[in-house]
């Protein structure tokens, strides 16, 4: 997809968002109409005007360059999926167990082959979190639904 089309999608979304925002202020209580509702209307107006100006600028521009979201498609989507799975696992199994799975698996799937580095760095990072965050700083970490 070209950058120009991406731009149009984002800017049109902004204009639609601005219209919806402006309309939503009608449902604000009377007490807010001269305060927070005015603020939201002000933002909606600025967003709509600026987005339309940018649409105009883009229309005049002769830019047909394409947008490169990722350089390595396989690794990019692997990381996205791993992060989503990691967040899901944290909700169920808590931080420590999920991290113990996430770290080595991601290292392998991102192309690291030295087993000793994978094991030592994963163990080291988990130990560091346990000692500094949990024991010393007492930062609460997610326990998960199952162990929580």
């Amino acid at each position: 997809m070209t950058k120009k089309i991406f731009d149009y999608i984002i800017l049109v979304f902004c204009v639609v968002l601005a219209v919806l925002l402006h309309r939503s202020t009608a449902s604000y209580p009377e007490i807010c109409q001269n305060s927070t509702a005015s603020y939201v209307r002000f933002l909606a107006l600025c967003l709509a005007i600026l987005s339309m100006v940018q649409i105009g600028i883009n229309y005049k521009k002769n830019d047909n360059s394409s947008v490169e979201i990722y350089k390595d498609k396989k690794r990019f989507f692997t990381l996205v999926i791993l992060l989503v799975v990691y967040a899901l696992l944290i909700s169920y199994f808590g931080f420590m167990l999920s991290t113990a799975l996430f770290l080595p698996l991601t290292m392998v799937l991102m192309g690291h082959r030295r087993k000793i580095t994978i094991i030592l760095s994963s163990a080291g990072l988990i130990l560091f979190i346990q000692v500094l965050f949990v024991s010393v700083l007492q930062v609460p970490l997610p326990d998960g639904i199952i162990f929580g």
Partner: protein
Amino acid sequence: MNIDIFSILMTLFSFHNLLAVFVGTLAGIVIGGIPGLTATMGVALLIPVTFSLSPETGLILMGGVYCGAMYGGSIPAILLYTPGTPAAAATALDGYPLSRQGHGGLALKVSVVSSFIGGIFSAFLLLVVAQPLAVVSLKFGPPEYFLLAIMGLAGIVSLAEDDVIKGLVSGIIGLVIAVIGTDIISGQLRYTMGFHDLYEGVSFMPALIGMFSITQMLELTGFDKIVTEKVDIKSIKREKMPKGLGKFIGVGTAAGTVVGILPGEGATIAAFVSYNFAKQISKVKEKFGKGNPEGIAAAESGNNGCVGGSLIPLLTLGIPGNSVAAALLGGLMIHGLIPGHELFTYHADITYTFMLSLFLANITFLAIGTYFAPYFSKISLTPNAVLIPAVCMFAVVGAYSMNNSVFDIWLMLIFALLGLILNKTGFSTSAVVLGLILGPIAENGFAQALTISDGSGAIFFESPIAWILWALILSLLAPPFVNMYKKAKLKKAEAVSGS
């Protein structure tokens, strides 16, 4: 008011207080250097630790963490494009490109020296002119706060000079996201879509971590290492501090200290405002964002200048200049120290010991940073396959621990993908985050001002301070628009001559 200087110095230079300065500063550098952990979090987590310490030792420890974290945040910002603290986001803009060019050591040197000068100057101001300066911030009312937030956003334009309008759109997107949550006037929920976690609004920490850290990790999937060529530690050591940075350090220090004094304006804004001013006065504007040491100097002196500045209204008026100062206020209160006149009379020994300890904290991080800076460059050599999961893990911890919410982890991932798309299309993620941070200040100021004036917009032009702020906003906005107009005119002329 009788201040026994000798007694204060004796207290400060006692073994346990010197140890507190060292441990606090070192811990601050580590906390600041870990993406996702902020100075606010560090100071807040330290408050219970200070229970068992004397008030001055507790405050010295917290002051050390504050100073150390402000500097420490620049290390991953420069080497990994992952700001350790939000305040280091501006540093990353030039620090990381410089690091990628093989000058990581130089970037770290500029960072530590600028941080030191900014920190020392603001501590000096805090010590000498605390009360007279704090009076200025007292004169700020709701309209001035709104204009202050707008002034912060005006800096966005210069950050996205090639796409001025896109920069502004990005900033407004941030302000719109900040509207989510509870209405400050009616107490009603707005745009929360039924999510309980959004009742208090979108926390900027997951947004910031998502847009700066995770987005960067997704980018890194296309590379095996951040720095492909080997870094020669010896050559890094030999790199000299570039000349001609004094002007930018001066501008950053002054801007950072002033912004720090203003309640609600944190080190992040101080760094961006300083960066923006530096860009305006630079002879090589086009090099900003591409590895210009001037940008690092201004941003780092700015965020460290904010430290002393933010403590001025805190200690004299009880108004925290930023979130770290707010956490420090908690530390003062648990020791029964009430900010104001009493701190400078009954508790003068404690207050002045604390203020003088900030000088030692700055010297400590200068020594640590100067000595270890070249070795920090080694972090750049870590294979991305190891770095990516490690940073993602710290990002998850950072996003979660601010509110202890798994929802914030999901929020971080959403902002990461949003940030990636915005980045690729020329919109500014820095502007979105800045808008999100400034949103509550802008809305409070705007709403309260209109309530006072019964809906009349004239209130934003009534006070002399408001006029000064308008002048500053215009001076920030005008140059990029003039440049844009000139570029368009030049292109048109070229097209005409070509045809």
